[in-house]
Structure formats: C-alpha cells, structure tokens
C-alpha cells in the first residue's frame, strides 16, 4: 500500500494541477513541490521499513488487474530497486526547485510532465509483473517526449523524436520477449514465478538486453543520448541522466542476469568489450567537447560503461558497486547538469570558451562545482570513488572475463580526471571575460537545490555502509542466480574434461608399461 502511494501520489499531483489550471504560476509550482517533497518523505518510510536480512521482495501489493490477459497489479521492492526508488523521489523535487524560474511558457504542463514522469519511473522500478513493467516503461516516454520537445533547446524536435524512436525500437523487441516468456511461465506475466531455464534463452536475453542497452546507453547505441541531453531543459537532463538511464542498467540486473544466466555468461565477453569501448570512447569524446552539457553527456556514456562492466562481473562486490554507482552517477551527473543549467541561465551560453575566471566572480558556485567535479572523477572520500573502486575490484577478481578489460577500463578513471579537471580549469580559472563580470553568484534557492546533493555525495563517500548493507542480500541473490547455471555447468565440464584426461593418461601409462613389459620379456 505504501509503495502504491509513493508511485501514484505524483499522478495525483498531475490531476490536481490539471484541474487547478487557472491558479497561476506560483500555485502550480507550490503544488508540484509539495507533492514532490511529500512523495520523497513517504518514500523514506520504504527505507526505514526495509528488512535488509532478506532478498525477497517487500512492500508487495498484488491485485487482480486484467485476468483476461493474465496480468496482475503486482509491485514490490528489493534492495536494488529500493535505492532507485529513493533516487527518483529525491531527484524529482530537486528538479522542480531547479526549474523554479526557468520555465517561461506552459509551466503547468512542465510540472505535470515532470510528475507524470516520476510515476512512470517509479512504476518501472517497482513492477513485478512483466506487463505492468512494460506499461510503465512505455508510458514514461510520453512525458519525457514533451519535456524535451516543448521546453528544450533549438534542435529539440530532432532530439526528442530520436529519443522516442530509439527507445521504442528497443522496446518492440522486448515486447516480443515478454510475450514469449509469458507462454513459458504457465501463462502468467508474474516476475516472481519466472524460473529458468527458458527455451531460446539466448534470443530472449538479446530481446531484453538490446532494449536496456539502448536505454543505458551502451556503445554503439548511445547516439541519442548527447542529442537528448543537450536539447533537454535542465530538469529534463537531470532526470534523464539521474534516473532514466538507470532504467536500462536496472533492467539488466533485474531481468537479463537472473532470468537468462547462461546467455548472460556467454554474451559477457561481447558486452564487456562494448562497455570498455564505451568507457574509453565516451571519455575521449568528452574531452574534446566545446559544450559543457555535451561534455557531461559523453561522460555519462563513460560512467555507465563502468556500471555495465560491474554488472557482468558475477562478483557480489562488482554488482554492489554497480548499483551504488547508479546512485552516484544520478547524484553527481544530476548535480553537474544542475550547475550547467544555473550558469546557462545567467550567461545563456554553455560554450567553455565563453567562460574563464569564474572562480573569482562566483566563489560559491566554483566551490560546489569543484566538489561535484571531484565526485564525478572519483576522488577518495567522495561517492564516485566507492562505486568505481568496488566495480574495478570486483571485475578484477572475477573469472568472468580477462583482467585486461579492467586494465583498460581503469584508464577511464584517469581520462575522467583529464576531461573534468581541464574543463574546470578553463571555466573557473584564467582571465575573467568582460561579459562575465556581472554574473551573480548562486542565490539561496540554488544553494538549497545543491545542498542535499552534496550531503549525499559526502555521505556515500565517507560512510557507504548503510547503502551497501541494504542491497547486499538482493545482489547476493542475483550473483548466485548467475553462477548457478552456466559456470556450474562449466565447472562440471572442466571436471569431466580433467577426469577424461586422467583416464587417458592412465591408459597411456598402462600401454607404455605393457610395451615395456613386452620388451622386457623379449
């Protein structure tokens, strides 16, 4: 019940704003913010009531919905989705507050889209019925489509249509996969009763994985991301980077790994290769971007490569690191987009060459920017370090893939330092341009927007235990599910092979002895 309230409270806000259209801008903003904050506060109840000692789903609601189709309204959370739910409910009010003065036209529509988006995203993270999952997955496209298309930049229409078509192309295949699973699951879409092995598991794995890989986005499916990020309004970029991309990685850890472990293991070399290419490629492309927002967008491609790498490491530390890094990336990149949005509102430019020496003029902005930059690089003591370290450590010890992958991936950390610090240097230091002399520093509202993000950036960096302990059991379950089938079979095969070799050696030795005996007798 609590979970349903969290999911649908934002939708209630949408209806409230729609009905109270005539109330004026401040009322609309007020309603949106109150609903957003209320949703966050209620969602904290999910955290406090969460039982970390079990991997089973909690806060489960299961109701008949469409018996004729075999679907139920079935929701629940585990240690993985709990964090993504909290991230969503946390970032939405931040976005509402960040967009306080920047929306000029159609404010009520903007807030309605943002809140509808929240419901869609929360539904994706909580759905335990494949049909329900797909409904939320698709319906979340519409508000995002409007957010980019109406309130976006110059090439917004191109960007938004590209975003929708990419996602739909992926989900078309996933739809077929879901239907195929339905008939292998005793005519039910229930996730909790799904248990493999499934027929055609490789095709099914690909049907799901491609849809998620587009969302992540994994190289080479990433081309929609820079366009969407650059054109989206600040709040849209924050949600996009903070939560939407995580739907892809969440889908991988929730569906691809546990449902099709054998296929996941077999495709691991290919996927990990793509992830590492993404890490390095994203970092290199980010380095040469003249546009701040594009730089952050390509850095997302790089960071999400780490997450995918960790997810396929078959190691509890690696997967925990990935889940933690999903949150970290949401916080750091979300914060970066907010900061870029703040400077854009003042200067109406995002070009790095237009800035320089801002640190003198805007000390608060520069300080916060520095912290967030370092968190994104992965400085020890800040959140990014913990996630990336765990991913790399987990990937290094695993047998799932060669250590060389990790070596190459680790260069991404260095490259991140290069492009982020270089960007920071060019924006903040050097000579202050005349046009930038009048730029005001952050106001109280903007500081309030940033403070909670900074709090979590430090908290996770210094003391990540409460975050990790809640997800431990659920991640452990995923790891055992992956390791149960294929590696076990692999091990068995290895043992059989060894046995066969022993037998062979034994017979050869016996033959040799026979020959020697024969020679002796002669």
């Amino acid at each position, binding site marked *: 019940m609590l979970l349903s309230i969290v999911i649908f409270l934002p939708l209630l806000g949408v209806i409230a704003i729609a009905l109270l259209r005539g109330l004026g801008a401040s009322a609309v903003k007020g309603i949106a913010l109150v609903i957003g904050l209320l949703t966050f506060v209620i969602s904290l109840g999910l955290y406090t009531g969460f039982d970390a000692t079990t991997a089973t789903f909690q806060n489960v609601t299961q109701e008949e919905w*469409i018996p*004729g189709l075999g679907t139920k309204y079935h929701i629940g959370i585990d240690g993985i989705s709990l964090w993504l739910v909290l991230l969503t409910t946390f970032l939405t009010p931040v976005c509402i507050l960040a967009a306080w003065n920047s929306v000029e036209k159609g404010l009520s529509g903007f807030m309605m889209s943002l809140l509808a988006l929240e419901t869609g995203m929360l539904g994706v993270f909580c759905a335990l019925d494949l049909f329900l999952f797909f409904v939320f997955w698709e*319906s979340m496209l*519409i508000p995002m*489509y*409007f957010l980019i298309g109406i309130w976006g930049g110059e090439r917004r*229409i191109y960007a938004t*249509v590209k975003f929708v078509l990419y996602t*739909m*192309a992926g989900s078309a295949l996933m739809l077929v996969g879901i239907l195929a699973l339905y008939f292998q699951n005793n005519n039910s879409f229930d996730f909790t009763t799904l248990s493999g092995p499934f027929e055609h598991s490789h095709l099914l794995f690909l049907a799901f994985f491609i849809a998620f890989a587009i969302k992540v986005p994994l190289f080479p499916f990433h081309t929609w991301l820079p366009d969407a990020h650059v054109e989206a309004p600040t709040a849209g970029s924050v949600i996009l980077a903070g939560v939407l991309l995580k739907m892809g990685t969440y889908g991988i850890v929730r569906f691809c790994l546990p449902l099709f472990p054998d296929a996941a293991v077999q495709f691991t070399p290919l996927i990990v290769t793509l992830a590492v290419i993404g890490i390095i490629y994203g970092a290199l492309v980010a380095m040469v971007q003249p546009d701040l927002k594009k730089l952050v967008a390509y850095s997302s491609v790089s960071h999400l490569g780490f997450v995918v790498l960790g997810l396929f490491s078959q190691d509890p530390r690696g997967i925990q690191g990935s889940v933690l890094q999903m949150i970290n990336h949401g916080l750091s990149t979300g914060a970066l987009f907010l900061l870029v949005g703040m400077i854009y509102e003042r200067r109406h430019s995002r070009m790095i060459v237009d800035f320089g020496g801002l640190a003198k003029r805007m000390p608060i902005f520069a300080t916060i920017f520095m912290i967030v930059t370092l968190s994104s690089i992965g400085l020890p003591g800040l959140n990014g370090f913990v996630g990336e370290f765990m991913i790399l450590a987990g990937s290094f010890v695993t047998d799932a893939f060669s250590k060389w992958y990790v070596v190459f991936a680790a260069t991404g950390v260095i490259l991140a330092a290069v492009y982020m610090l270089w960007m920071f240097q060019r924006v903040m230091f050097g000579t202050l341009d005349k046009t930038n002399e009048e730029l005001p520093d952050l106001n109280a509202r903007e500081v309030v927007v940033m403070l909670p993000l900074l709090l979590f950036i430090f908290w996770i960096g210094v003391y990540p235990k409460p975050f990790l302990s809640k997800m431990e059991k659920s991640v452990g379950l995923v790891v055992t599910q992956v390791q149960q089938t294929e590696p076990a079979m692999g091990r068995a095969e290895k043992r059989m092979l060894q046995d066969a070799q022993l037998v062979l050696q034994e017979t050869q030795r016996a033959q040799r002895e026979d020959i020697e005996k024969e020679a002796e007798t002669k």
Partner: protein
Amino acid sequence: MPVINWGLLMPELVIALTLLIVLVFDLFDSISKTVLGWMTIVGAGIALWVSIQMHQAGTVGTQFNEMFKVDNFSLFFNIIFLVSTILVALISMSYLDRNDRKQGPYYLLILLATLGMMLMAAGNELIIVFLGLELMSLSLYVLAGYFRDNPASSEAGMKYLLLGAFASAFFLYGIALIYGGAGTTSVPAIAEAITAENKSPLLLAGMFLLVVGFGFKVAIVPFHQWAPDVYEGAPTTIAAFISAGPKAAGFAAFLRIFMEALPNLQVEWGSVLIVLAMLTMTVGNVIAIAQTNIKRMLAYSSIAHAGYVLIGLAAANNDGISSAMLYLLVYCVMNIGAFGVVILAKTEDGESLMISDYAGLGLRKPLLAMFMTIMLLSLAGFPPTAGFVGKFYIFKSAVQAGHIWLVIIGAINTAISAFYYLRVVVTMYMREPEEELSFMSYPSTLVVGLVLAAIGVLLIGILPSLMLTPAQNSVF
C-alpha cells in the same frame, strides 16, 4: 409458417424502425433537421442497449432457416457498429449545419449502412452476408459523394463505387465457386462439406476470391488504393464512418466465414493472411510517413491498423478472434475521435487539413490538442490507452500461435507508426504557427462525441477488463 422470434432480431428491428421514422420526419419541413440526428442517436442508443443486454444474457439463436444467427459474436459486433454510428452522428450534426447540407438522407443512409453491417455480422449464409455487404456499400457510395457540388467528394463517391463494385463482383464470384465446391452457401454446411480429403480447387479459388473481396472492403494491401482518395475526398464525418464501422463489419464477416465455414482450409488461408498482414502494416505505415494531408495520413494509418487486425485473424485461435474484435472496437473509437478533432480544427477560411495547419494548437486550443494527443497516442499504441491494450492482446495471440516473426514485424511497425503520429503532436505542441488562424467555437455535440471517445480510450486503457472479458466471451 415459420415461427419468428422477434426478440432475437431486436437490435436490427430498432434500427429499421428508426430509419423509417427518420424517413417520415424528413418529409415535414417544419421540423428542425437536427432532430433527425438526435433520432438517429436515440435509435442507435436503444439498439446498443438492447445488444448489450442480449450479450450479457448470452443470447444464442438462429432465424429464417438458419440464415441469420444471433450469438455473442454478432452482438459484440453490433456494439462496435452502434458505438461508431452514435459517435459519427454526434460529430456530424454541426458539420452538416456548417456546410449547409440536407440532413434527412444523410442519417437515413448512415442507418441503412448500419443495418447492412449488422446483417453482415449475423449472416450465417453467404448470400445474407453479401446482401448486408451491398446494403452497407451502396449507402456508403452515396455518402462518400454526399457533397455533390464538391468535385473531390464526387470523385471519391465515383471511385468508391467503381472499385467497390469490382470487389463485390469478386466476392460474389467467390461465393459461386464455393457453392460449386461445397454444394451449399450455408456457413455450417460448408464447414461440414470441406474435409481433409475434399479440398477441391474450386473451393480454394473461391476462398482466394473471398480474400480479395474482403481485402477491398477492409482496405488490405494490395487492395487498398481506393482508401486514401476516398478518405480525402469524402466529407470528413463520412471518412470517419467508413474507416470505422464498415471496416469492422468487413472483418466480422471475414472472421465468421473463414473461422466457421472454412476452418479446414486454415493451412491455406493462414499463410496468405500472414503475408497480407505483414504487407498491409508495413505499406500502410511507411506511406503514412510521407503524407502532409491529415486525412490521407489517417487513411494510410487505417490501412496499417487493418494489418494489425489481420495478425489476430492469422493467429486463428480463440484469443486471436477476441483480440481482433477488441481491437476493432478500440480502433473505431479512437479513429472517429481523431477525425472528430480534424472536423473541430476547422478555421474560418476552410478545414485545416494540412498537418502543418496544426502548428501551435497546443497553446491556443489546449483542450482540442489534448483530445488529439490522446487519440494519436492510442493509435500509436502507447500505454495507458486502449490502443496499447488492443495491440498487446493481438500480439499475444499471435505469439501463442507461434507467429513470432509476424509479431516482430508488427512491433517494429508500431515504432514506425509512432513517428508519424508523434509528428502531429510535435506540430501541435512544439512548432509556432506560421499565420494566426481563427478558430470556430466548439459545437457542443461534437465536444460530447470527443469527450465520450476520450473517456472510452482511457477507460479501456486503464481497466481493459471492461471490454476484454466481453470480447473473450464473444468467440463463437
């Protein structure tokens, strides 16, 4: 003297009676002609209520030497037809007023066409199906050319008549050949006559001719060429009508004849329908992308939607039949809704038929743009609208039948179709108008029609069981 069970014929009788009343009242000049529209709505409403009651009671029976069969299947289709008729009548009233047209013959023809559709759905005999088809088609030919002084409308009527006549000829020839092969035109008797051993070439030829005939009527590729021209030229309300009820009626007879009379030829027609479904979806959607006229775009989209329904037919299982029925209902509602917005979006100096005319509608007419968005999202198959549920159910039935590739092509087509549906939404919300257009005020009847359509689309989208369970109970 055969005993006639009038109760079984109740919906048809109500419609026949209504059309007589409309005919008579049209004679009196003193009566406001909008009354005729209301009579149509009330008559169709009563027939709808009766059909629903009979459907819930699960009425089954045959009449007139088993030529006329009432069962949940025909009653469910009655519901589709009558809902379409009511919605079309609602969006027609102000449209006719505005264009200063005679109203009497218009409603008369609509009711006649509706009666023809009901006959098609209930026909248990190929000749009855043909009679219904002709009754419906002849009325539609006249309606398509209803704006006599408008060359486009006359052309549409003429084209529809010529191609429709060809289709009818194919259909009749098919009936003749099947009679030659099976020795009967009664649906259950044909099914008995066709056995695994007795598959005469006559029967196969007749079956293919029937496919061609139906293909024309429901606009399946490659028999679809008439549709865009007719939709574009015909009065917008009639384009809405042709795209809804008659298409459903064509599929009703299609389902009845192929599933009940020719199930033993399923191996033969099943593969044909798979190919046709793929062609129809892909051609319809791809050509729709290139359209700049919204009526032509909706015409190609309606071709594509016939392709989706064909997926259900090709699946040929119980879910396939009921999913096709549910989809037709949903499609009728959302398509008439979309056409309704096209009518409403008329400017002072003419109908706005170019997609580019819709620029800026989202800010100037938010309510209208919202209705259009709901309809288009439903046509594109986004949740939580009825279009999504309908499409999902069709795909599910096809996966059950093992037609994975058909579903993959259908799903990719859904993504293609999203492109051109969303383009209209883009134009409405994200582009600035090139010139300021002044809009008509909202006629109340039209708004009622749109609100009903929107509620229907969202309600079926969120609580699909409302219509899904009846559809599942309607498989013969």
